[in-house]
């Protein structure tokens, strides 16, 4: 889908200047690091100002951000549209719970293991799926997210998955109960994991793999001619995306304290896509905007109209897309480009 490529290039300008060649001077880079630092400070301070429920929401936002990041790596940077990430979220969540309950592993050991398992699952799915393009891939991934609940409810898997009844996941307990409540502890744990995942994504995008993926997205034939193994890289992209979503799934299980097949319907995959596009599909920081959108906007819609909240949500969604067709990151990019043009115009005259 070449137009996805164009979209991605526009939004990607800010996030991966190194790749698209719009590398800016150290001043801009410095500005960006300041922004990141500010975000980090806010992230660390916020839980001490909010109540338990709000901290819960904040933790959910962090978890969604990781999931959407996985989707962005796949759809934005590698050009493979995926409507099936909810399914990998389920795999991660259930893997995590099985590891905790059946093998007695502590909660902090489960995200990496769940992630590794999901990487393998994603790679195996991505291998045959690499032959599919655009809409066909969308269908294949959508089909995956539709059948996942049905698979989870299978009688044969019931001793592992708890079937339709679901499984309780023990919430982590704070190690410093005097200073940090359980909710805050869980938030910091998720935040730590999220930061690690963001750093990893940053490095992937700026490294060889990232360049290969972008090449694949923008010009698959040229990339093949340059010696990039298309199928292999596409499968890796799927694997990485699944890994991210799986880790998000396992964190999500800890946050909700309970998982069941109903928690992972195709609606979840659609939510991830909405978050990804609203934030800017090829942007790493756009994922934060997307995560905030999918977590808070439904509540906002409910406040506006109690009888038809989802209609309001739909309207807000459409308005967002009209105003920012390239997502929030695209908007930032356009704004900065506009400012840059204005400043050069001024200096010229």
């Amino acid at each position: 889908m070449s137009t996805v490529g164009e979209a991605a290039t526009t939004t990607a300008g800010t996030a991966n200047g190194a790749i698209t060649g719009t590398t800016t001077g150290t001043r801009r880079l410095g500005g960006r690091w300041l922004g990141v630092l500010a975000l980090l400070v806010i992230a660390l301070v916020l839980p001490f100002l909010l109540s338990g429920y709000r901290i819960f929401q904040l933790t959910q936002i962090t978890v969604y951000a990781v999931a959407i990041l996985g989707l962005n790596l796949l759809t934005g940077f590698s050009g493979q549209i995926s409507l099936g990430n909810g399914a990998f979220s389920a795999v991660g969540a259930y893997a995590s719970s099985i590891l905790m309950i059946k093998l007695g592993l502590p909660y902090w050991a489960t995200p990496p293991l769940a992630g590794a398992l999901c990487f393998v699952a994603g790679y195996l799915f991505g291998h045959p799926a690499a032959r599919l393009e655009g809409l066909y891939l969308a269908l294949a991934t959508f089909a995956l997210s539709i059948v996942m609940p049905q698979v989870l409810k299978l009688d044969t898997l019931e001793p592992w998955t708890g079937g339709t009844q679901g499984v309780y996941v023990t919430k982590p307990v704070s190690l410093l109960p005097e200073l940090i409540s359980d909710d805050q502890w869980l938030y910091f744990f998720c935040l730590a994991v999220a930061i690690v995942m963001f750093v990893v994504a940053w490095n992937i995008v700026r490294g060889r793999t990232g360049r290969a993926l972008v090449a694949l997205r923008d010009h698959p034939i040229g990339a093949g001619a340059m010696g990039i193994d298309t199928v292999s890289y596409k499968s890796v992209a799927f694997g990485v995306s699944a890994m991210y979503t799986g880790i998000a799934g396992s964190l999500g299980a800890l946050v909700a304290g309970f998982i069941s097949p109903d928690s992972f319907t195709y609606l979840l995959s659609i939510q991830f896509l909405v978050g990804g596009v609203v934030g800017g599909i090829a942007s790493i920081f756009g994922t934060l905007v997307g995560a905030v959108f999918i977590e808070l906007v439904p509540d906002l819609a409910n406040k506006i109209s109690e009888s038809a909240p989802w209609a309001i949500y739909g309207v807000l969604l459409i308005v967002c897309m009209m105003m920012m067709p390239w997502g929030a990151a695209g908007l930032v990019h356009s704004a900065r480009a506009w400012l840059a043009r204005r400043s050069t115009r001024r200096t010229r005259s």
Partner: protein
Amino acid sequence: MQAFLHQLLSGLAMGSTYASVALALVMIFKATHQVNFAQGELAMFSTYVAFRLVGAGVPYWAAFVITLGFSFIAGIAIERLLMRRIQYASPLTAVIVFIGLLVIFNSMAGWIFSATTQVFPSPFEGPHAWYGTIYLSPHEVGMIGMTLVVLTIVFLFFRFTRLGLAMRAAAENPQSSRLVGIRVGWMLALGWGLASALGAVAGMMAAPKLGLEPNMMGGVILYGFAAALLGGIDNPWGAPIGGFIVGVLENLAGAYLVGSHLKQTLALALIVAVLVFKPSGLFGRTVVVRV
């Protein structure tokens, strides 16, 4: 044998709904290269409109025609007001807009018409329905018949009328069409209108069978989408055939292959498997691009 025939025919009945939805999807795709995920909800909403008309005393076929008109206009309105503004944006943006539309229609239907299942009348049932058998109820026979009639009309329209030709040209090659004097924008809008009307037919045919409620078309749109891709998303013949295949496949998979608890899984897995081996669908054109 009897059971097999039963499953097969019942599959064809449901398949007729998938066929109509698939054709509607393909029509919009050919014109705009976008898949309208909100097609099902639009169809459902139109069916509710018909339901209210019938409830107000309007005779069935009059209500049918009025509803077709309503959805036709609604489709045109959506294209002119909404889709035209985002046509230069990425296809993902369009997908999100469709999702927004889907959610709006679903929610509005629940709010305006309530979520309780309603009884939608069928024009094919009644004492005069000689054509019902134990394999196919009178309504199911009517469903299949109506779908075939509508498909034929659509085919004749596109093949033998000037307007149909103009629409095909606009979809195939918008730039050249403009040069020839065809108003491409309005052709797209017409395409949307026709697709919505087609969806409304699918909805009104399916409602007596499935039960009219806001989530009626949820499962249908998935299979319609799968059917459209199976038949080849750019082939208007492939879509209805794909629809019938999917309907039958769904039934046979559940009855003979894995049992109902994995029916959905197997049906979709098979479709995806076909796509892996034939990436542009059964009847789709493999696009060869000059690099």
